[in-house]
């Protein structure tokens, strides 16, 4: 732990004190390094590589800083560094679409910053001017600051009602950047929630069921919306919305089960981070995988893990989730049976979405294979090797976490319980093809209304002109002329007359 309170603001410190920030930090570092290595290869011919690396490094620094922060202000520093620098990654390609998405991203990021700032202020004030986590977690939350913090951090985390920017911004960034955005950066919001909103807080426990339901909605919404898009990266982005919903659900469970859900949450974060990064990276170079079965296998490994194929990390976290839910101390209006049914349905939908993704990837390949950039063989091989490393990490790492936290391994029954949603999804998908039902074309790839409002907002805050009050111009000059002419009297008699009149008046009025 590094104490910086004599240098920076009071209470500033960096360190990996917690038992979950440490794995979080190492996991993030690993992911950043892997993707960084990937970027070294993929951005080699990028004309704007300098800018890319600048923002990449800033994001990296911000992300690491916020995880290692021991006090709220350091966290906020890292958080804003991350948020703002990510803008550079989002609009890296410079296309109109990217700029549009970037604008939306930035608007919401700044809004989130400010909300978070207000929340922090209220909390800091409540904590008597101390900034470290421990003193904050000891002070009970109040509804206003809780709302502000949830909104501010939620805008980063990107679960359902606060997800607007996510499906726009993630797809337009370069593949490694999207991988990081979805893989680690949106987790920063979640980490913030973990830090700022202690599970044991009374108010938090009251609100947890609501968050739980929100998470579920988000999980479903992400998938359903994703099914309506055909660009692979958009689908992946919506999948992130859905997965963040699960994470929010887990976060809510923390308050309902005590801290037992924490390792599961951590494992889920690692799992989703790795899987989503792999998928984004793959989506970025899917063209090179055409006709190469091993490369496609990497996709399937990652996708299946996300679909919670038994023995995969996905299976691990999904069973963990179910176990925790079962153990949770739910309020009466939340029926556990319905919830687990919904979870199962969610698993089916997730699998469906990934199958949809696979299909779209193939279609995209067929369209794009003609005009993919020809990279050198060594470059390409290096990238695929890194992807492979990532995928293997995905399959291996969560088990370490389970081991470290001594969680129960999924039982055989649970494994089989995970199989059939997968099969059901396959069946549905097959049926879909079989009957070649297509939704009307205009249902697909609709522009998000958020973009429209973003433009409206932009016009609002960048007005070309504002109403100006125009004072009526009064020209007194003619009046002055008239007065001058009227007063152009001969001086001597006039003055003498005034003198006499004054005398008379004064004497009479005495």
């Amino acid at each position: 732990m590094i104490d910086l309170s004599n240098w920076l603001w009071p209470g500033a410190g960096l360190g990996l004190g917690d038992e979950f920030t440490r794995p979080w930090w190492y996991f993030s570092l690993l992911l950043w390094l892997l993707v960084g290595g990937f970027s070294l290869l993929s951005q080699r011919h990028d004309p704007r590589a300098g800018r890319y690396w600048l923002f990449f490094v800033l994001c990296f620094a911000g992300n690491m800083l916020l995880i290692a922060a021991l006090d709220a202000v350091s966290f906020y520093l890292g958080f804003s560094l991350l948020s703002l620098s990510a803008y550079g990654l989002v609009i890296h390609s410079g296309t109109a679409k990217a700029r549009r998405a970037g604008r939306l991203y930035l608007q919401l990021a700044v809004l989130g910053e400010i909300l978070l700032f207000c929340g922090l202020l209220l909390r800091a004030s409540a904590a008597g001017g101390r900034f470290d986590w421990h003193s904050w977690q000891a002070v009970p939350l109040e509804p206003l600051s809780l709302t502000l913090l949830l909104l501010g951090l939620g805008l980063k985390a990107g679960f359902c009602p606060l997800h607007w920017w996510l499906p726009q911004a993630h797809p337009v960034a370069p593949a490694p950047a999207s991988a990081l955005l979805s893989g680690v950066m949106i987790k920063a919001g979640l980490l913030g929630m973990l830090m700022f909103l202690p599970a044991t807080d009374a108010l938090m426990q009251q609100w947890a069921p609501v968050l739980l339901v929100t998470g579920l909605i988000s999980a479903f919404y992400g998938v359903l919306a994703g099914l309506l898009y055909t660009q692979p990266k958009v689908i992946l982005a919506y999948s992130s919305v859905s997965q963040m919903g699960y994470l929010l659900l887990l976060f809510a469970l923390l308050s309902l089960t005590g801290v037992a859900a924490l390792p599961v949450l951590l494992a889920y974060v690692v799992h989703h981070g790795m899987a989503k990064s792999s998928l984004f990276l793959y989506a970025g170079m899917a063209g090179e995988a055409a006709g190469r079965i091993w490369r496609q296998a990497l996709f399937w490994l990652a996708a299946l893990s996300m679909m919670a194929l038994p023995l995969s990390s996905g299976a691990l976290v999904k069973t963990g989730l179910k176990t925790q839910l079962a153990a949770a101390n739910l309020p009466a209006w939340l029926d556990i049976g319905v919830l687990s049914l919904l979870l199962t349905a969610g698993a089916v939908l997730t699998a469906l979405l990934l199958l949809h993704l696979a299909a779209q990837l193939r279609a995209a390949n067929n369209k794009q294979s003609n005009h993919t950039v020809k990279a050198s063989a060594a470059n390409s091989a290096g990238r695929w090797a890194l992807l492979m490393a990532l995928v293997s990490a995905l399959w291996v790492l969560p088990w370490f976490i389970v081991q470290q936290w001594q969680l129960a391994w999924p039982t055989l029954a649970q494994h089989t319980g995970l199989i059939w949603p997968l099969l059901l999804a396959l069946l549905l998908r097959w049926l879909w093809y079989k009957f070649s039902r297509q939704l009307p074309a205009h249902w697909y790839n609709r522009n998000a209304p958020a973009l429209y409002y973003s433009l409206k907002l932009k016009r609002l805050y960048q007005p070309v002109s504002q109403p100006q009050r125009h004072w009526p111009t009064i020209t007194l000059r003619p009046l002055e002329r008239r007065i001058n002419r009227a007063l152009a009297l001969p001086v001597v008699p006039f003055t003498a007359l005034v003198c006499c009149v004054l005398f008379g008046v004064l004497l009479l009025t005495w």
Partner: protein
Amino acid sequence: MSPFWQQYLPLAIILSSLLPGLIIFTLKETQVKLRISLNLFGVGVKLLLVLLMWQAVKAGQQFYFSLPFLPGADLVLQGDALSLLFVVLSSVLWLATTIYAIGYLEHSPLRSRFFGYFSLCVSATVGLALAGNLVTFLLFYELLTLATFPLVVHRGTAQSLAAGRKYLAYTLGGGVILMLGVALLHSLVQSPLFTPGGYVTAVVSGNEGLLKLAFALMIAGLGVKAALLPLHGWLPQAMVAPAPVSALLHAVAVVKAGAFGIIRLVYDVFGVESMHALQLAQPLMLLAAATILYGSWRALSQQDIKRRLAYSTISQVSYITLGVAMLGPLAAVGGLVHLVHQGVMKITLFFCAGNFAETLGIHKVRQLNGVGRRMPVTAMAFTLGALGMIGIPPTAGFISKWYLGLGAAEVEQNWLILVFALSGLLNAAYFLPLVYRMWFLPQSMPWPQEQQLSNRFETHWMLLTPAVFTAVLLLLMGLFASTELSPLSWAELIVEREFRHD
């Protein structure tokens, strides 16, 4: 330190810029070297003296110098912690501005006159900071107006003359109203030294109406320079002045003088107790909050860079007023530290805007496209300044907003946090597009008026260094806020002394 020194040090600090200024007036245009060395000599001496004083004040010494003037109100120069905050700010920024101005005006006419008035202006500012009572303050306040006016109209064009006229109309009007207020207060309690905790407490009962009137008059007078809401009209127009002058107006001298006066008025004349007793804080707070939002809102639509910055100043300076008006220790720290931080940030922005104008002829927002590639260092400095204005950590702006926000929460005025949030959003809305244009858009048209000012750097080094210096300063002040040298700890010291009196 001997008593002799102690007495004359405040005077020497003023003279260190006044005398070179007066000598510079007499120089010929061709005596460039002599003029520059005189100028820099003055800056150097002043910084040295200020350093001496800073150390002594930190150790708890007081400086006092007086001349007989009006009955009951001598001309007093006094060095206490609060005055030193302002003195240090203006001397350090004067250094940067002097270098900048030398580079900026390298080939323009009437430089002797310019630098003469420039030095006078700084002398008046420092005198105002060191003023020990209201009458002395009033004196330097008016002198500042006079010394600044020739700078505002320096270009001598119809536009700058119009701006000068407006500037005078506002500031002289404010000066008269301030004089009225000071005279009223003087007739009630004389004009003793500024004392922490104020000196009107004894006469509050029975004189509520008059005291309120005096306060309103003085706030109106100071509000002109501090650009409080209905009195801000001169500031956006005065931006036609050359960039160093804008820097002076917005960061070093004029606007700050108003804000500083409000701080003095609230803490050292009326004092927290009387402010509460007279219920003066709430209206001031409302006024400041309205100014903050209004300034930001008006800044949105300004297409001229310096004009946009000017509206931003209107908004930002009211943070200081707001911090003061909240009457809580944390808010006071925020307000005081913002006095410094805002100065450094705004001067950076003006330096950069001046660089763009001087090197490339850029005046409008839309001409900024792609400047980041042509002038990366300046654009970087500008970006830092802009981020600071929005209040993004780790810049200095964040620190002051943080303390202001904490102060608002401390005195349970949560609506002010909303004001800060809104203003932050608006700040982002008018600064980020500039940053965006600089870095992320390609150059869309040829530079309006490009000049090759340097072969090695993107512009003349004398224009570049001050901007970089202040940009680094604002970053350092934000990063190392807890160190002993930071304005934050100095502000805490002041507040501790101000609030400890009882």
